[in-house]
């Protein structure tokens, strides 16, 4: 069950912060002109040296990689944290071995995962010793320690033998199911056949080795103070003093990263071009974006450039723009429990009649991404199998992104409305954002619903309130939620479909199965896919689930977002497909 409560991630979180004008701007859309594609490889002959500065509006969530669970934190922390696996810029499927020496071996029954580790990887100062498998074991164990506050340890490693006790006691005690036969081998024994998912989760920063002799006393503090003493395994380290106390991190102000003297490039795929990385926090997105575009050696961190600057960059400074698939989509959710959307024909009619291109224009048009046609976004396993850029066969209500009145009329008639328009009288409750681009999308949708004949009770509230008070609460009985969206945790479609469409995940509070879909076929497909081993097999099952879900018309899908990133002229930027941000390990100064 915990496993299903997967994370609502990244972009949504960024935009959920949109209580204020500043952040609303940060959640703005793209531009109407076509942009450049993501660059996922460093240019040949990239230079070493120089200082790169990352401008950010807010801080990382945790400086401790074992607790961090946030896109921006990942962007910064993969420079000083090396998990067992991590994503090279171009990696979209399986993460590459990092501290691990090769791919994780999942046993046939899916219940054992074995990982071999490289030798010669050393902790940075002040620990200065070689990394062993026991450090990885401790890293995962401390993820269950309440003082560490990791958000996903139990979700992804909850099936490791003994993990449930660890989760109960929550003091970071050893977990029997994590075994270290030698210093460079670690084995995970699982209670269920979830080996593939566990193997993928080893690409999350929790698997970054942590030296127990150094960190344990700190982890006994509540909260743990290891974050303020974190030891580097990567090419960079946060400046610290002799005791290991960080001097280069001032919350909400700055993070100073310098080269880690103990890092051996032979053990790492990261080229680590620049000598120093400064993270400057507290930057206003408008000012910061302008500084990046006009300045030198700057890249953006946690904020999205405002539409005006994006437009300018997209038209005249394409070299400075990186558009990266965000691995998610935006869709307007029907509530199956609230009439008239319990009627599938009504839902299909609405989808058919909705001008989804007009919706996309509110965020900036085609540059921001393709029209969403089904649930699995580009880049995720099952995307192609589920139809690629096209809707599933037979879904004629999704054929015309600009809206098709004939198809709409057909389905309204099928629902018994002979006029070809909606004929009911009851007001339907629509709750959307009250500001920014989200507010505009909601307004466009509401007016289109009215044109279709609905009588709309349209409420506009702040984005976070929309979720916490309305759309995430089944009791609120919102009929239509125009500002919902979901983004991947990593490149596995489970994190995308399960929390949002599995009937087991309908919660009374904090619900993200907005349609409250509880379809036995879909549930079965999802449950089956979760325990299936092997990427291709999983992809196929998730694609089936996707098609099945899409045919049930649970939402009006309208855009598969790309995340825009901007850099200064003299920066040869490389984007991370996994994190949808600028990859600091591969980016160099021209």
């Amino acid at each position: 069950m915990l496993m299903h409560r997967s994370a609502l991630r990244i972009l949504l979180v960024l935009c959920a912060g949109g209580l204020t004008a500043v952040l609303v701007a940060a959640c703005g859309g793209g531009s109407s002109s076509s942009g450049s594609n993501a660059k996922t490889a460093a240019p040949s002959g990239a230079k070493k040296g120089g200082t790169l500065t990352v401008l950010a509006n807010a801080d990382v969530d945790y400086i401790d990689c074992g607790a961090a669970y946030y896109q921006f934190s990942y962007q910064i922390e993969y420079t000083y944290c090396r998990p067992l696996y991590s994503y090279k810029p171009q990696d979209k499927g399986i993460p590459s071995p990092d501290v691990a020496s090769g791919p994780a071996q999942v046993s046939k029954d899916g219940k054992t995962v074995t990982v071999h580790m490289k030798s010669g990887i050393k902790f940075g100062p002040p620990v200065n010793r070689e990394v062993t498998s026991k450090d990885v074991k401790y890293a995962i164990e401390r993820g269950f320690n309440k003082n560490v506050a990791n958000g996903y340890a139990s979700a992804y490693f909850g099936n490791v033998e003994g993990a449930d006790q660890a989760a109960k006691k929550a003091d970071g005690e050893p977990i029997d199911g994590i075994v270290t036969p030698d210093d460079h081998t670690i084995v995970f024994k699982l209670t269920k056949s979830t080996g593939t998912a566990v193997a993928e989760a080893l690409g999350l920063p929790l698997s970054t080795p942590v030296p127990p002799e150094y960190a344990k006393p700190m982890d006994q503090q509540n909260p743990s103070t290891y974050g303020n003493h974190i030891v580097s395994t990567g090419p960079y380290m946060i400046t610290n003093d002799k005791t290991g106390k960080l001097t280069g991190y001032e919350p909400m102000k700055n993070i100073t990263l310098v080269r880690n003297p103990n890092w051996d490039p032979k053990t790492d795929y990261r080229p680590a071009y620049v000598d120093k990385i400064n993270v400057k926090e507290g930057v206003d997105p408008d000012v910061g974006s302008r500084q990046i575009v006009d300045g030198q050696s700057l890249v953006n961190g946690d904020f999205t450039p405002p539409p005006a600057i994006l437009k300018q960059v997209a038209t005249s400074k394409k070299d400075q723009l990186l558009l990266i698939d965000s691995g998610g989509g935006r869709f307007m959710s029907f509530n199956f429990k609230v009439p008239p959307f319990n009627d599938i024909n009504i839902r299909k009619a609405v989808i058919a009649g909705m001008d989804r291109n007009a919706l996309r224009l509110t965020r900036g048009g085609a540059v921001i991404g393709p029209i969403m046609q089904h649930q699995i976004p580009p880049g995720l396993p099952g995307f192609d199998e589920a139809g690629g850029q096209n809707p599933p066969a037979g879904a004629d209500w999704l054929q015309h992104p600009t809206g098709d009145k004939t198809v709409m009329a057909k389905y309204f008639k099928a629902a018994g409305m002979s006029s070809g328009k909606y004929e009911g009288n009851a007001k339907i409750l629509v709750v959307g954002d009250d500001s920014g681009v989200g507010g505009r999308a909601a307004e466009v949708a509401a007016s289109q619903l009215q044109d279709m004949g609905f009588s709309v009770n349209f409420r506009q509230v702040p984005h976070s309130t929309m979720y916490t008070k309305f759309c995430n609460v089944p009791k609120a009985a919102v009929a239509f939620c125009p500002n919902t969206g979901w983004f991947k945790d990593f490149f596995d479609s489970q994190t995308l479909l399960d929390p949002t469409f599995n009937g087991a995940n309908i919660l009374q509070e904090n619900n993200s199965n907005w349609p409250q879909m509880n379809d036995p076929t879909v549930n079965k497909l999802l449950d089956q896919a979760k325990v299936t081993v092997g990427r291709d097999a999983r992809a196929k099952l998730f694609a089936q689930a996707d098609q099945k879900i899409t045919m049930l018309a649970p939402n009006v899908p309208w855009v598969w977002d790309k995340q825009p990133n901007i850099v200064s002229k003299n920066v040869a930027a490389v984007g991370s497909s996994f994190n949808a941000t600028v990859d600091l390990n591969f980016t160099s100064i021209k």
Partner: protein
Amino acid sequence: MGRYIVRRLLWVVVLVFAVVTITFLIFSVLPSGADPARLRAGRSPNPRLVEEIRHRYKLDQPVTTQYGLYISNLITKLDFGHSFQNDTDVLDQIFKRLPATISLSLGACIVWLFVGISVGIISAIRRRSLLDRTAMGLSLVAISAPVFWLGLVALYLFADDIGKIPILPGAGSYTPITDNPWHWFTALILPWLVLAAAFAAVYARLVRGNLIETMSEDYIRTARAKGLSERKVILRHGLRSAITPVVSALGLDLGLLLAGNAILTETVFNIPGIGRMSYNAIVNSDLPTIEGVVLFGALFIVVLNLLVDIAYAFIDPRVRYT
């Protein structure tokens, strides 16, 4: 006077206590969309983790217990608690950030007093002249311009990285005065001007109005009848009275400054002060930090008002406190 000050100081204690309590109530009792524990668990609403965090920060205990704990820590240990957001000691953070805010506010205050009073005097003397009309027109613009917008305009015009006329250090260039006084000074020029603009405008209008009124007083006629030069008449006799309301306005405005404009200015210019800190704290429902900032702010405002009242007694000999 002494007794008066003691009595006022006792009031300060009562007031600050009330402010702390009200802030606590607002965040703890009134329903708000933001659950601090959930926000801290933040990016992944894993219920168990949320519970753990709730427990860690004693958010699972009755509000009265939380409140009692907060107050007792505050009084006995001067412990403002730890930030929900990044576990840092609130008092420590406030003290670290205080210099930046003081630099910004005090500097801006000097700028606006200087500009506001001079423009006010000139406008009052040259009443209805082109100069007066221009100054008063501009002041209306300055008063109605949102600080945030003004900050962006200033940066786009004059910042050395993104400005059209790149002459002054822009956003994010703040340096502590102890590191480099010259950089400190140059980096604060734009923020000072932006922050001071609206206040300077208000003060110019205030001084102008007061001075015009004062200049028709009988004692101004007396001063002229003495044969004093017009300069002395205006500065020694006119301004002396016209400036009195400015002192009381200053007490309120410095409070207002902290409550709003300094936050915005620090945000636009990325000055690591109290303003930015409270902005982040509010966005993240970081109660301990909000409490700390509010407490400091309240203390600052009431003490400032006390100072203003005392200053008043010195400025206006007719005022006597008992």
